[in-house]
């Protein structure tokens, strides 16, 4: 198993990636940030990430489609959904489709770190938050 956790973060709001990258890097993750879902999916086609964190509401391709694509290619990957428009129906749909977790915005970097740590543990990494 590689030492560092590989994480892809996809959100069409630039501020999200900017805020979260340092917090995740401190956890010992190799983080790649994307704002464009099409480009993110292209990257995912070329690499199996340990963890994908994706926004749900984006233009053209929504997070649930990203979830499906990621798991089709790499069922091992833990996909964490983030959204500012959390609703019970969407949350349930995401879990049914295989999401590892579902978080509503706004959340602090620490909130995400603890979810990432849980995902890492389930992948067999040990991680101090």
């Amino acid at each position, binding site marked *: 198993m590689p030492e560092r956790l590989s994480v892809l973060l996809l959100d069409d709001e630039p501020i999200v990636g900017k805020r979260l990258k340092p917090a995740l890097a401190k956890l010992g993750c190799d983080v790649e940030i994307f704002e464009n879902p099409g480009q993110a999916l292209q990257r995912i086609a070329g690499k199996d990430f340990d963890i994908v964190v994706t926004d749900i509401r984006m233009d053209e391709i929504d997070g649930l489609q990203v979830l499906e694509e990621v798991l089709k290619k790499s069922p091992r990957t833990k996909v964490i959904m983030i959204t500012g428009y*959390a609703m*019970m129906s969407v*949350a*349930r*749909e995401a*879990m*049914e489709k*295989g*999401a590892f*977790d*579902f*978080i*509503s915005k706004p959340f602090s970097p620490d*909130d995400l770190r603890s*979810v990432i740590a849980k995902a890492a543990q389930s992948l067999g990494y040990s991680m101090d938050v």
Partner: protein
Amino acid sequence: MPVIIISSDSYQTGREIAGSAAKALGYDTIGREILGKAADKYKLPEAKLTKALHETPSFLGMSSKLWKQYLAYVQEACLSELLRDNVVCQGLAAHLYVLGVPHVLRVRILSDVEKPVNQLVSQRGISPDKASKLLEREKQASRRWSLEAFRLDETDPSQYDLVIGLSQIDPEEAVKIIKETVGYARFRAMTYSIQCMEDLALASKVRAMLLERFPGARVSANRGTLVIETLALKREKGKKAKAIKEMAGKIPGVEYVEVHVINDFLRQAAESFR
């Protein structure tokens, strides 16, 4: 993991199904046994809390103010228990106030239509027709209760994920359906759904504390931020808002309190006639 809330047109039926489902799943049950603890906490007889769960206020009975307080105490007691995973809850009207939480499976169980009629016929020696009418009256009373207490019709199937009728389907089979349903990934707890439950629990705690002094206070919570609405006359606004903030701020988990004071037109009108 999941929480199951069982509602039924018969307390006994609901209790049996809840117990069997909990046994089948290895879950705990939460029912009216928690009312004892709540009664101790608020220093009142347990019977009053139980009564509030099926009677509406009346001229010679419970006042509306007290009724709402008692229901708030029940809610608070129930919601604090539901923060645990893997529980089956029944008998506390939770189906009417645990709303919008994704990892909660809400099931309504409808008794076998003939069984309660036959039971009444043998217990009271009345005709089947009379027994049916009595049960229908009870059903309507229960419906009115849910509408008055929580502004929701508990007989409306759209309140639930699933409704199972026991006229043809056996209780064991109903439990099997519940057991399989709760295994679906959509009922797994997630950060968002746990947060939803924590918000409901915190809001109920604060409301239970405020209601005695501020009847009609409405509380919602979002990650430690409270929004509290209350009625007040213009001249009382500042004082009331301050008092509420102080009281609510003492509750663990509360980080910020916002108070919206709505002008109490009725009291204002009443006072202007004095």
